[in-house]
């Protein structure tokens, strides 16, 4: 039994994909100054949307429904947080609870308590001609489901968009100093609403990937805390697109390491392996975090008029 490095990396990227998608959504939301604890809710909503969509109209419809469902979850969040000016942390917690409950309820209503079995089609990995033959990183990065390539596009897009467009600038300014944005004619409420919507779409997409590129069916609570991990990844990645990519990859490979170690059948308590990704994250943080700068207004409610 040996560990094939290329295969390990491929699995790491696969595991990192939904985490990174959700984390990019959260990155945008946090750069606008909001912490979206409803992300987990958007993710489970997306997973359920994917099941419904894909059962009715194939994979494309599945992803579309995933995005719609994720957006719906955060629209509620945006309404409560931006219009009612409610505390985002409580609202996010409630939205997640709501989404977990609602998806469970609808799932049972539509598929009965017996569930949907492994009924939806899933995306197969697609090799990028040429690139997938690169040693080590070839299969890891270029033999993945289409969703992973969409992630690359998203990452590059954000990496370009944040510093190179006025919209990106407006987003960052809103997260730092909403009053400055307001003075410059930008509505912080509008910016945050769009950011939340994007965050919901990405969370939904991440849920969709779980169903349509990995498991092939829905299970209640299958997001299993990934939304919260995605939020941690944003912090670990210091709110930068490149940092988030690295952090997601770190988390993905730490999880893979955990799986691989268990599969080797060593006589070590399995909890040790399960804790590995979190311990590794702590160690990396201690080594690198020295005064990471969060967006200055992160978590602070707006008190300017919409």
């Amino acid at each position, binding site marked *: 039994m040996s560990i094939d490095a290329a295969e390990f990396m491929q699995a790491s990227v696969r595991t990192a994909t939904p985490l990174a998608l959700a984390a990019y959504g959260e990155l945008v939301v946090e750069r606008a100054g909001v912490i979206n604890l409803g992300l987990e809710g958007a993710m489970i909503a997306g997973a359920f949307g994917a099941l419904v969509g894909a059962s009715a109209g194939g994979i494309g419809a599945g992803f579309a429904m995933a995005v719609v469902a994720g957006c719906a979850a955060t629209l509620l969040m945006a309404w409560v947080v931006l219009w009612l000016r409610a505390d985002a942390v409580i609202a996010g917690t409630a939205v997640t609870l709501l989404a977990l409950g609602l998806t469970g309820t609808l799932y049972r209503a539509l598929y009965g308590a017996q569930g949907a079995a492994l009924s939806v089609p899933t995306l197969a990995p697609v090799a990028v001609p040429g690139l997938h033959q690169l040693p080590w990183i070839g299969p890891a990065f270029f033999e993945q489901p289409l969703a992973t390539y969409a992630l690359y596009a998203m990452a590059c897009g954000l990496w370009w968009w944040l510093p190179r467009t*006025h919209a990106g*600038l407006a987003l960052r*300014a809103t997260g*730092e*100093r909403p009053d*400055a944005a307001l*003075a*410059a*004619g930008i*509505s912080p409420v509008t910016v945050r609403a769009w950011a939340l919507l994007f965050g919901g779409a990405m969370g939904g997409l991440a849920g969709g990937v779980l169903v349509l590129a990995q498991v092939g069916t829905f299970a209640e609570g299958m997001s299993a805390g990934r939304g919260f991990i995605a939020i941690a990844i944003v912090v670990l990645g210091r709110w930068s697109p490149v940092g988030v990519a690295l952090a997601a990859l770190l988390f993905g490979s730490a999880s893979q390491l955990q799986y691989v170690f268990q599969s080797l059948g060593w006589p070590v308590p399995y909890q040790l392996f399960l804790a590995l990704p979190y311990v590794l994250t702590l160690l990396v943080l201690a080594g690198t975090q020295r005064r990471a700068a969060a967006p200055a207004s992160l978590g602070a409610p707006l008190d300017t008029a919409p």
Partner: protein
Amino acid sequence: MSDHALVLRAVSKQFGAVRALAGASLTVRRGTLHAVLGENGAGKTTLMRIAFGMMAPDEGEVEIDGRPVTLSSSAAAIALGLGMVHQHFTLVPAMSAAENIALGGRGRLDLGAVAEQVRVLSARTGLAVDPDTRVDALGVGAQQRIEILKALHGNARTLILDEPTAVLTPTESEELFGWLRRFVAEGGTAVLVTHKLQEALSVADDVTVLRRGERVLTARAAEIDIVTLVRALTGEDRAPETRVRTPRSQTVGAVVAQLTDVSVRDARGVLRVHQANVTCHAGEIIGVAGVEGSGVHELLRVLAGRLTPTAGTVSLPDTVGFVPEDRLRDAVIEDFSLSENFALRGAAARRGRMPWPELRAHTARAMAAHDVRAPSPDVRAGTLSGGNQQKFVVGREMENRPALVIAENPVRGLDLRATEHVLRELAASAASGSAVVIFSTDVDELLPLADRMLVTFAGQVREVPVVRDAIARALVGAA
């Protein structure tokens, strides 16, 4: 096109129980520089924010270029050719000057191009700004210059400047006014909110005075004098005080504080203060001047005991009063009541219970003694006007008769009466035997006050005569 670039008519605005504006009006003629004066809290900023679309008036009308408008946001105002320099910075500290100036645009963002435009604008206006430096690495003077360039960047035809000179050096102010006069001469229009009466009379074409949310005076600057202005501002019939201090006491008191060969390096290892030697005597007022980055703030913080130098010896008295420049960051906690803010002094050493009834009574006494106008010691510090906050801070720091007082820009942004009050307090403190060190960006504030002058330049501290020219030369490093 109308003769009037901006008209505000019978504007009212209420904030909770506070009536900020009570039917105030303002008429700004095209191609003029219009000064708006008023005491702290008179409603100047509120009126300007309404003109700029950042706030909707409860009542009243806004006309721009003769056309009645309803502004939904500052974006709408900017589109109509308005630009505004805000009293309290509206800059994003974590962004570069160029990014801040570009904020509010659309489409692709080419920071290189923006930086180039900023350089051009900077050269044209004489306002030196490095487009690539992050704002949080800059001093308040530079930040103010960025605010101004930001307003100009939108190609504004009408500029509103809310106390732009409060943090500028006299030279910078002169350059700004020079440029503003040219701007106006070329057909632009400017509204200048200020507390400096002399300034208003000398650069403005027209003057409007607000009091308690109402217009009490509009006149041609050339046709009125300073006494008229003071009467309009305060509603009292009196002349402004020109000297708050009698000439210096001849006897030199004992040494209360001494810095010997003090050097300071900042977090990045840059040398900010180099082998400074300063001696403060009881009963004297030492004026300090220095441009941004000259090490002046580090020097003052070492003197205040708030910064430990990298090298050299420091001898300070037990009690040091400190009035820092950034009041809301370093001196008061906005969410705390006045009593609580008062209790901050000495909080580190306190043990056991807080004697609140005593502290509250003490605060009330101090408020009365130092003319802090607030309903009670229990109100949030954040609800006080800037002037009253400053009087409160000065009063708190004076309360246990410190042997040494350090004040940084203590009257910035304060109106006539608050300024007089604060300066009088500092003078009284010296008279009662404290050593008082006052830093001000505006050297003219120091001249009638200081017994000695220290000027910092490039980390070096030099003593100069209390003479305007000598100080001005030392500020730029000339002999």
